[in-house]
């Protein structure tokens, strides 16, 4: 596979950055410059990956441009979260920053990746009903944030309780990563080359991302972590992997789905998942009501969050219903019109069928008609031969002859036409010479 020169340049640069990280991690001791360097590494790799993904924006086929845009936005959000840390370390703000911004961004990045995957870029049929699809995606991402807001946020907003915030956040991120990994794995199994290769690379990247993130978290918790160390390697490798995935993007074309219904089924399932997500929120809140030893401000925060989320989600669902109903009405109208159209065409076909049959009969008809005509002509000649004929009757007989000739010439012209372009399936004409 040949790469465009720009993509080649990005890839080389990314490889160099990654190798340099390995070299530095092996040799350097923890220090301030190393921290800055270590923080800058993922940022640089992410920027390169975004640039590489940008090259795919102007693809004409199907949902691919949308896919790459969502992918790039995911990367950009990830970059935002990384840059956040970089900024704090660089400004030597020793006070622990509130983790909310960075963590939210990190979760959000994953939501974008998930949304991009849900578009099923490999399918040519994807991309119908994009508006409804996006609503589903927004519903799902709002749901993720509600979970984050429910389980993690209360421990940061009211009280700075890292001991309860961190584990729940880690767990959420891990679950999110697992969901993405499962989704990519399913896509991997269900597709064949070249999309399988693409999804395999994505799978590797996300597995590495999940593992790297876990490793980072464990290392940070056990105070062994410092920026620029080998602990960064799996995470950096994951980001590095995004680079070739984006770079090889242009070689992929959506392939037609075997069944068009699959596309619809897929969107139905996305909608179901979204609704399941929404349904889970009141259940979680109900179970939370019976949780013991919960500070009342946390409980109130959670309830308020769930209610607000439900208002928001409910509003979106309402909007979606209206869209769906509109679509349905439109479709029903279209169907009605097309059935009418079909009836008209059917009538045309029935009529043309008759003409076709008549055309097919042409040879037989010509023969059938020419026989009595010959007889009439014969009798009219005999008639003119009768000596006792008055001049008036002779004129009559001649007029009969004239009419017969006209009829005969009509039949002859029909025969000529038939001879010039024989009816496609007139077996009679093919077999028996016209007499």
């Amino acid at each position: 596979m040949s790469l465009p020169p720009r993509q080649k340049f990005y890839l080389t640069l990314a490889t160099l950055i990654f190798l340099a990280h390995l070299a530095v991690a092996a040799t350097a001791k923890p220090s301030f410059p190393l921290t800055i360097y270590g923080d800058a590494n993922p940022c640089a790799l992410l920027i390169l990956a975004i640039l590489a993904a940008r090259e795919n924006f102007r693809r004409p086929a199907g949902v691919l441009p949308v896919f790459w845009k969502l992918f790039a936005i995911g990367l950009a959000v990830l970059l935002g979260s990384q840059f956040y840390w970089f900024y704090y370390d660089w400004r030597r703000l020793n006070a622990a920053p509130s983790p909310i911004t960075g963590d939210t961004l990190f979760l959000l990045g994953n939501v974008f990746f998930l949304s991009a995957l849900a578009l099923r870029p490999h399918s040519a049929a994807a991309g119908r009903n994009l508006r409804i699809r996006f609503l589903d995606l927004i519903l799902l991402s709002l749901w993720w944030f509600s979970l984050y807001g429910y389980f993690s946020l209360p421990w940061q907003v009211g009280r700075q309780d890292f001991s309860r915030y961190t584990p729940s956040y880690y767990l959420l991120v891990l679950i999110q990563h697992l969901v993405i990994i499962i989704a990519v794995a399913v896509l991997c199994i269900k597709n064949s080359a070249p999309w399988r290769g693409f999804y395999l690379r994505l799978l590797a990247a996300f597995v590495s991302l999940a593992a790297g993130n876990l490793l980072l978290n464990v290392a940070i918790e056990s105070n062994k972590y410092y920026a620029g160390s080998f602990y960064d390697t799996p995470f950096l490798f994951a980001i590095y992997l995004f680079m070739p995935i984006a770079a090889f993007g242009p070689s992929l074309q959506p392939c037609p789905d075997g069944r068009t219904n699959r596309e619809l089924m897929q969107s139905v399932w996305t909608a179901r998942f979204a609704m399941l997500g929404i349904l889970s929120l009141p259940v979680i809140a109900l179970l939370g009501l019976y949780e013991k030893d919960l500070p009342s401000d946390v409980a109130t925060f959670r309830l308020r969050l769930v209610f607000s989320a439900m208002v928001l989600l409910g509003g979106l669902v309402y909007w979606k219903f209206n869209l769906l109903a509109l679509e349905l009405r439109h479709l029903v109208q279209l169907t009605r019109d097309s059935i009418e159209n079909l009836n008209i065409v059917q009538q045309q076909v029935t009529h043309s069928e008759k003409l076709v049959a008549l055309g097919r009969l042409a040879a037989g008809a010509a023969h059938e008609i020419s026989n009595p005509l010959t007889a009439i002509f014969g009798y009219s000649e005999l008639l003119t031969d009768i000596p006792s004929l008055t001049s008036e009757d002779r004129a009559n007989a001649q007029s009969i002859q004239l009419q017969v000739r006209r009829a005969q010439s009509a039949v002859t012209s029909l025969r000529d036409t038939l001879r010039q372009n024989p009816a496609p399936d007139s077996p009679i004409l093919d077999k028996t010479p016209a007499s």
Partner: protein
Amino acid sequence: MADGIKAAQTQAVLQLRSPRPLRYWLYGGLGLVGGSLLAALLFGKGFALAAVGDALQLGLTATATVLTFQNFRQGRGRARVFWLLIFAGSFLWTVSNTIWATYELCFGRLPDLPVVDLLLFVKVVPLTAAVLIAPDRERDERSRAFGLLDVSVLMVYSLYLFAFGVFAYRLLPGAEPIYNFHFNLADAIGNQTLVVVAGIAVLRARGHWRDLYRVYFFFVACYGFASNLSNVAIDMGTYYTGSLYDVPLVASLVALVYVALAGRPGEQNPAIEQASKTPTAPSNHATFLTEHLAMLLALSTPVIGIWLLSSATAPPQLRSFRVAITLLAIFVLTFLLSVKQDFLAAGLFESLQRLSETYSSIDRFKSHLAQNEKLTSLGKLVAQVANQIKSCMASILEVSSRLTSRPDVDSRIQNMAGKIGQYAQRTDVLVDNMLHFAKETPLCLAPLDVQPVLESALHLSRIAKLPQVRVDITREGDCQLVRGDSGQLLHVFLQVISNAIDALEEVGGGTFDITLRPFASNLVLEFADSGPGLKEPQRVFEPFYTTKPVGKGTGLGLSTCYGIIQQHEGEISCRNRPEGGAVFAISLPIALPSVPENNQSAALLAEGAR
């Protein structure tokens, strides 16, 4: 026209009112109301009065329950759901009345169970929903499900409101007066809503449903009045069972039983079973309203939740209960909405599928039209030529008849002119047949002898002229006239024959046997060829099914035949003979003995074809 409809309506109304049980019930019910009034006036508070009052109420509700259940079981469409909901309401009522009577008569005290209150309130919900479901408007299956879902949302929501505003006070110690007050308020609101909804239904409905709704309205208005009255009386401590307060209640129950009786589907009033189909436009409007109302109500639950959290005045016990039921309501409502979403998606799915199907068949028909353009234009040419010949024949006939009709001419001349006339006539009929066949004429069924048509088809197709093909026609038994259209039948026969020609050509000749025989009230024509047989006999009549090479068969011929024979109320089928070859069997209904007007044209047809 309008007068006719009106007259029919009045007649139907009379029918609705006239059945015996209804009239009896009207008198009986009035008697019951009068009796309860008398009893309330004559007897003071006591066990006997209570027993009579309880028994009366219980009996009436139980009757309504049984009757509405019967209506539900026999009903159809939306009316079925309507009766189901009314049945649910009556059933809940009966249960609460049973509990009430048991407590009052067996334990000697009024029940103080939350269940009774709940039942009393809740029964209004299905009674309202029954009207909201608009049984007088028929809609397709899907929107019926929608309607049910929307109505369930309303029901769940009202239950939630009851739990939220009334039931919550049960949990508070010492909040009995608040509870009572709220209960009465909720009950009154529920009843008022029901009255308004029923009133709108009366105004909106037409015909028999309007009459039914009128009685229903009377029932709910009476009940609302009675309920408010007795609620106030209970709180004032002046109520006792069987007292004057109960008289309107008895009247309302009588009306309910009347509704159930009047709505009995069956021979007395078939109209109730079916919805009136005339007003279609506002029905969309009605569903639209219910739909959006349901959605907005569902949306309001989390808003209520937020309000709950911000108002700190309520006691914590009350608050936590309310939060819990709010969450529960959100869950149930969201669930109902997701089911609805699934319905919508399914509808979308189905529509899309149907759309793509019609589009693809339009495409196929269009490509078929394009494919057959050549033959079509050839057919048009034949029709043109035929018209030309027809005009020639007309003038020949005119001349020849002029010659034959003159008595003064030579007999030889007359003879010749007669012969010429005969042949011209024959040609004319032949050409007529062709034209008739090609024209888009509506089906004209008339008694006709199929044999000449058959012979004409054989001639036109010239099957007998093919090398190594032997054609045989056998008539078995007395072949009567059939009801048919000669032009259309000619088409069918030609198609079947041309099929046989193809089959025989494939094997280089053979036999083609045609058998005519009467069978039951049909005439059966069997076309048996000794060709290779059919590959898939069950698919032969499918449109676009063809076994012939591309450009030869269009696959529409036999399906058209199928359509024509269906229009004749006959049957066409095909099978393979065990000894090889295919058999097409066409059965046509034998014409009832009447003036065989078409005989002449059939004879002419035979004449022309010879």
